[in-house]
């Protein structure tokens, strides 16, 4: 009875002597499984084979599982999205895939998804079309719908099936937040029917499920009650309000369209399926989605700067326990490393440790994990851990002779192969490295404040820095779950260089009489995560002023920044800057401005940023235009749905009106 399909590339298929068909996705030449054209077509052949065998009574059930270490199916193959620029093209592909998934759904035998590793997006939609879902509880196993982050929502009838499985509240929350769920959470919601402890048990649990003809019961009646009106509209209203707290509908329409879909058709699966496709298509073809897909690819591009194997840092030593140094060490600990923190001033270390505890409490799941993390963060005033460290980062005062002396000493103490890095932003890397016996060893690691929140780290390549050291530094950055951007050693590197003219433009507008609220609102209208004046208050006006002068951007006469600094109004840290700050929030007057006017002003504010991005590209501060865009998006929060400053500019030039949407 043994049956196989020999010509498959991305799947393995066989039927065993008990009559169970096994379809194992294991995409050739890929480290992760994704659903693209190839695997989808092959799955079609598999479904056909099972349909036919089931008619002959030769197959009792089908198990879908994966041959990869860390993914079931991590989503659709985003590389193929490139071609989805018109609605017609989207419709064609979606239709074919929908048909396949519906055929899978209708198979007369039991279909089981046995899930190990990432099961995301289209992968989860496929799993939801199965009769029974089993996940293991290993650390790499995660389920979720990340679609909203790409400007779309599930488009393979996943909206309908997720609601059927988990009920409206849980399913919509999962789809609206895009959160990755641990197996236990997915089980609690109903997205998964059964858990097994390790991947070794998956095969056997799946076999039993087929033999017992298990079928998911779907969400319980009390969850389904919420699908009925008027409850559904009340729910939808709450969801809209919650989503609006996070993003603006004009910039990120996808979650709002999803809520519309739910409100209109939530209790009618048949019509909801049709409407899902109808509403999905324009989203997929929109500029917003194309740009967000671009942002995703840019993040993958930065991750790829780190070599896959070789350098595996585990121990970090940070010198200088100020805000920056302390936060870098604490972040490394959150990411599982051991960090030691050195400072002449032990009180500084103590302060950093107590700040770290706050960070651990927010990021780690159990008190035990917090306690363990505290033990991993070592107060090391004498620098005893230097010789054990894989990465040593300096974050002390910005004084050349002090830094030179420190690195001279460090060079002799660190172990061979360890990364030697400075977090300087205002001194030349080449100058610091000059006295070293091996100046090619020093790299820059420029973190941004607050370390825990900003995803980018600039990896600074000095004129003499060896490529190998740059790559090791990138490996360290990805190991702490940040994105490395390799930059040339020039003033302001990329991010501050591009950000500063924008801030100074805001100062100029303010000096010319524009209200601070209007300036900040205009920036938000453009899509910046925070207004420039509020941002400067957060960073500290002394620092902003310093950077402005350093880059020779400060207005020559009557600089309001200078005045505020002289008055001791340094922003949030002193309680007043452009705004008066109370309880960590700026006091704002609630004024409404004309939207068109805000749009004009927002565009005006970012213009210097776009120009500077162009100049940075010309000066080859980073490798190419994509790197400029990636750095500015991840380093400044530049409106991700616009795809980056240079991309935005190109689009605007191609179609002046369309891009300003």
């Amino acid at each position, binding site marked *: 009875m043994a049956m196989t399909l020999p010509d498959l590339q991305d799947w393995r298929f066989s039927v065993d002597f008990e009559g169970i068909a096994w379809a194992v996705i294991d995409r050739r030449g890929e480290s992760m499984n994704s659903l693209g054209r190839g695997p989808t077509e092959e799955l079609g052949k598999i479904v056909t084979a099972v349909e036919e065998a089931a008619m002959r009574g030769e197959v009792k059930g089908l198990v879908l599982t994966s041959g990869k270490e860390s993914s079931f199916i991590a989503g659709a193959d985003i590389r193929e999205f490139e071609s989805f620029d018109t609605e017609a093209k989207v419709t064609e592909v979606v239709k074919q895939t929908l048909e396949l998934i519906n055929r899978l759904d209708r198979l007369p035998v039991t279909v089981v998804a046995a899930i190990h590793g990432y099961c995301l997006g289209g992968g989860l939609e496929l799993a939801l079309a199965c009769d029974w879902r089993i996940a293991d509880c290993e650390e790499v196993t995660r389920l979720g719908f990340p679609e909203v982050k790409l400007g779309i929502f599930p488009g393979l009838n996943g909206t309908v099936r997720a609601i059927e499985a988990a009920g409206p509240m849980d399913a919509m929350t999962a789809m609206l937040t895009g959160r990755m769920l641990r197996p236990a959470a997915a089980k609690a919601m109903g997205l998964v029917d059964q858990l097994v402890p390790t991947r070794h048990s998956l095969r056997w649990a799946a076999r039993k499920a087929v033999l017992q003809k298990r079928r998911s019961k779907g969400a319980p009646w009390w969850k389904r009650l919420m699908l009925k009106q008027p409850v559904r509209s009340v729910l939808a209203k709450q969801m809209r309000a919650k989503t609006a707290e996070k993003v603006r509908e004009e910039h990120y329409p996808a979650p709002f369209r999803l809520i519309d879909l739910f409100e209109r058709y939530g209790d009618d699966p048949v019509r909801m399926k049709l409407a899902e496709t109808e509403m999905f298509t324009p989203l997929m073809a929109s500029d917003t989605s194309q740009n967000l897909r671009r942002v995703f690819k840019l993040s993958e591009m930065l991750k790829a700067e780190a070599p896959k194997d070789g350098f595996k840092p*585990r121990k970090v030593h940070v010198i200088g326990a100020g805000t920056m140094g302390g936060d870098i060490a604490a972040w490394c600990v959150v990411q599982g490393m051991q960090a030691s923190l050195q400072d002449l001033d032990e009180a500084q270390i103590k302060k950093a440790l107590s700040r770290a505890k706050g960070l651990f409490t927010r990021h780690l799941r159990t008190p035990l994990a917090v306690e363990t993390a505290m033990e*991993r963060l070592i107060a090391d005033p004498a620098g005893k851990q230097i010789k*054990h460290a894989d990465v040593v980062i300096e974050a002390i005062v910005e004084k050349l002779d002090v830094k030179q002396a420190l690195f001279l000493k460090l060079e002799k103490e660190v172990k061979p192969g360890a990364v030697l890095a400075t977090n300087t932003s205002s001194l030349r890397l080449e100058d610091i490295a000059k006295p070293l016996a091996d100046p090619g060893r020093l790299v820059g690691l420029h973190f941004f404040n607050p370390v825990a929140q900003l995803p980018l780290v600039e990896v600074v390549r000095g004129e003499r820095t060896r490529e190998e050291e740059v790559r090791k530094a990138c490996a360290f950055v990805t190991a702490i779950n940040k994105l490395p951007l390799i930059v040339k050693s020039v003033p302001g590197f990329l991010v501050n260089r591009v950000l500063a003219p924008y801030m100074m433009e805001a100062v100029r507008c303010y000096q010319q009489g524009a209200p601070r609220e209007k300036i900040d609102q205009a920036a938000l209208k453009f899509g910046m995560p925070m207004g420039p004046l509020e941002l400067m208050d957060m960073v500290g006006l002394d620092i902003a002023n310093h950077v402005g002068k350093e880059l020779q951007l400060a207005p020559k006469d009557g600089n309001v920044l200078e005045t505020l600094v002289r008055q001791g109004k340094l922003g949030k840290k002193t309680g007043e800057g452009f705004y008066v700050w109370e309880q960590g929030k700026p006091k704002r007057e609630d004024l409404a401005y004309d939207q068109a006017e805000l749009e004009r002003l927002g565009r005006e504010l970012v213009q210097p940023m776009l120009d500077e991005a162009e100049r940075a590209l010309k000066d080859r501060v980073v490798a190419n235009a994509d790197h400029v865009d990636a750095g500015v998006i991840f380093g400044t929060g530049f409106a991700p749905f616009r795809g980056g400053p240079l991309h935005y500019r190109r689009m605007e030039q191609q179609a002046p009106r369309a891009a300003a949407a």
Partner: protein
Amino acid sequence: MTQYGEPKGIMAEASMRRVAVLGGSRIPFCRSHTAYAELTNLDMLTAALGGLVDRFALHGTHVDEVVGGAVVTHAKDWNLAREAVIGSALAPTTPAITMMQACGTSLQAALGLAAKIATGQIESGIALGSDTTSDAPLVFQRKFAQRLVKMSRARGFGPKAATFKGFIPGELAPQPPSTSEPRTGLSMGEHCELMAKEWGITREAQDLLAYESHQKAAAAYDEGFMDDLVVPCAGVFRDNNIREDISLEKMAELKPAFDRSGSGTITAGNSSPLTDGAATVLLASEEWAEKRGLPVQAYLTLGRTSAVDFVQGEGLLMAPTVAVSELLQQAGLTLQDFDYYEIHEAFAAQVLATLKAWESEDYCRRRLGRDAALGPIDRARLNVKGSSIAFGHPFAATGARILAVLAKLLHNRDGQRGLISICTAGGMGVAAILEGANRD
């Protein structure tokens, strides 16, 4: 993947082969109810094995036998060693044997493997051990457990109810595992107090030995000696029992833990703590090691297990004196022929009593059947990287920890020879000799 050696014919005719110790890997040891409070023996053993696999690039490799176990263990962990192998990256064809000899477990496992390697039965083996007192099994008392069994076998409500005749609520109290000796009802510490008194071991001498153990262990981490021996687990990077800031004054303030009459000398400070952890060590034939390009750190040349009649009053933890004496006799060596002594520190008093017994002509003649005392050892060669008082003592893991440390010492320093002795519950002792690989 299985590699068979050349056909050997009848075993007795095969010449003995040397047994190489290639090195070990363990997870940091943690005091019970701290960082590993939520881990099981299987979790820890799998993590330690993972470290060994990474260190020696054993991914997908078939190892001929994996042997070891845990002392404090759940009934469901009856196949612990094999389950750890399945959860590891070793080839799934690797068989494993779960065995146990209290604190001697992983050293005994290594001796068994060594015998099979020496006689050509296998080419490679991993000895391992794990223990946790954080995840100790709580079971129903026997009386109540038997009621449950009877009830499950009874048919009908009446007969089922009848099995509960005479039930008292006290039966429901769960029974924790006990570290007391079943025959004497005394705890290990109480037994050791008796030994301290018999051999006149002072509080000061015990505290000093414990103090030095912490100092040496801290120095071992500081100099990087532990770097390749320990892999992080559950976010922990180093043993959490080592106190480099410890002082003799502070230790002197601690109250005796077992004999509170005023004459007790054993405290929490000069005993090994209850500890969670796991350790592994890789053994092989020289051919196997060479084929994989793995340097031989040391050779495991001889082992000996002995027991004392503690039920009739001998010191419970004095068996190593016998095991070592018999081992020396077999090897034709004197006690002074070693560069390193690794004497497991269950208690400082037990180490000191052992040393004193070897120095006692009376004891050596009467109990060990020798003509003269074995004599003193050079204390500077004793536990040079610290031992169980500092690192902690997850019972079954300690043997593998010591094997890895001693093998590395011999490898690093071109030392010639090292002696291991471990005392165990039930009045037993396990001893072994490691020889340097660079002696030729």
